[in-house]
């Protein structure tokens, strides 16, 4: 009869399923954060563009804080201080909140750049046709400016997806956290990190390919 308990066991096929589920959670938190962050960032960018100095004095420095403080610090601080103000968020929601704000702070500058890229003469031409301010924004500024800054936005989105790995410090079991757990059990860090890296690549690559296709279509 075997009495010793084995702590370590090698990499098994079922671990691949475990990693796939973790990759799904990485994808989930990324899609949510990037979507919310893009909408908020577009709004902030518009405020900074239109609000001029008022927004530049208030919103600008605030977004600078979120852009400048390392994400891991933001996550730990928010997760631990949020309960004090009555927000009892689990690691997943805390991660979504911080990643969204972080994404928004990056997208805000991209969005403002896009609006500036359209230029006053183009907007006056649109308004001279009888378009309202909002029609001009929707049908002229958004498509023209959006295309101009689309590559920058893709860069931000891919960055946020990779940075979502940091939510692992809160205990949310996404791809990186799952890898750490498996490494502890299997003692095979190189193999597991290679697999995790391949998962991240598999998540990013279709996005950058699709973005490249879009850019190509627009430029022709």
């Amino acid at each position, binding site marked *: 009869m075997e009495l010793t308990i084995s702590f370590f066991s090698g990499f098994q096929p079922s671990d691949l399923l475990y990693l796939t589920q973790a990759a799904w959670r990485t994808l989930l938190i990324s899609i949510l954060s990037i979507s919310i962050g893009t909408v908020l960032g577009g709004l902030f960018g518009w405020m900074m563009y239109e609000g001029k100095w008022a927004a530049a004095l208030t919103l600008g420095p605030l977004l600078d804080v979120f852009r400048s403080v390392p994400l891991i610090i933001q996550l730990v601080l928010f997760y631990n201080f949020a309960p004090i103000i009555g927000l009892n968020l689990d690691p997943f929601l805390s991660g979504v909140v911080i990643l969204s704000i972080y994404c928004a702070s990056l997208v805000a500058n991209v969005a403002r750049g896009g609006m500036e890229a359209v230029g006053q*003469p*183009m907007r*006056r*031409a*649109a*308004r*001279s*046709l*009888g*378009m*309202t301010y909002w*029609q001009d924004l929707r*049908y*002229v500024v958004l*498509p*023209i400016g959006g*295309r101009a800054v689309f590559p920058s936005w893709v860069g931000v989105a891919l960055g946020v997806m990779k940075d979502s790995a940091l939510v692992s410090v809160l205990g949310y079991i996404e791809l990186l956290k799952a890898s750490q757990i498996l490494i502890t059990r299997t003692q095979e860090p190189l193999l597991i990190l290679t697999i995790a890296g391949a998962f991240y690549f598999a998540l990013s690559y279709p996005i950058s390919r699709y973005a490249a296709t879009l850019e190509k279509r*627009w430029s022709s």
Partner: protein
Amino acid sequence: MIEIRGLEKYFGTLQVLKGIDLDIPKGEVLSIIGASGSGKSTLLYCINGLEAIQAGTVTVAGTDVHAKGTDINKLRQKMGMVFQQWNSFPHLTALENVALAPQIVKGKSKAEARDIAAKQLEHVGLGDKLHVYPSALSGGQQQRLAIARALAMEPDYMLFDEATSALDPELVGEVLDTMRLLAEEGMTMICVTHEMSFARDVSDRVAFFNQGVIEEIDTPENIFGSPKSEHLQKFLSNIR
């Protein structure tokens, strides 16, 4: 009918329009000439409500452009404007460029807007370029596209702000021909221009701007044949 009374416009402390009085009856073609910085273009922007004014009134078809309650977007539908830079929408084909405003501003159906657009592009001689993107058009073609885009709103007035100034010399003719065509069709037009031959041949009246005032306004024959003011004489002799 466009009526301008005592119009004054400042950029900061710089006064660019110093009390303009001007009536443009329906069907008239008015050319505005004068040196750069004399306020010609600013006047057009004030008529269209793209620039705020500090004193006076601009009335278009009985509506005060700068009054608080005026629906400026509705009023602008009556005034087509063509700019020095043509500003075609780069993400839309020629047809879509022209069809956009009728569809979203006037609420026409997509098919109807496209019909109007095709008709107007034909009108300015771009009937074979319907599905071409602006990047594949020459400057002259893009400027005609801009004219078609303005015409698609079926305006009563057309404002041209140095429509040919940014064009290569060999492309000026086609745009001027389009403007001539509009004039012949009876469109009311205000043309800020440096093309003296156009001003002479096509206009009913010519206004000479100098430092924010209309220094002389008369028939082309009198403006070019027997200019009264010293500034105008000097301006014309510099051009010739």
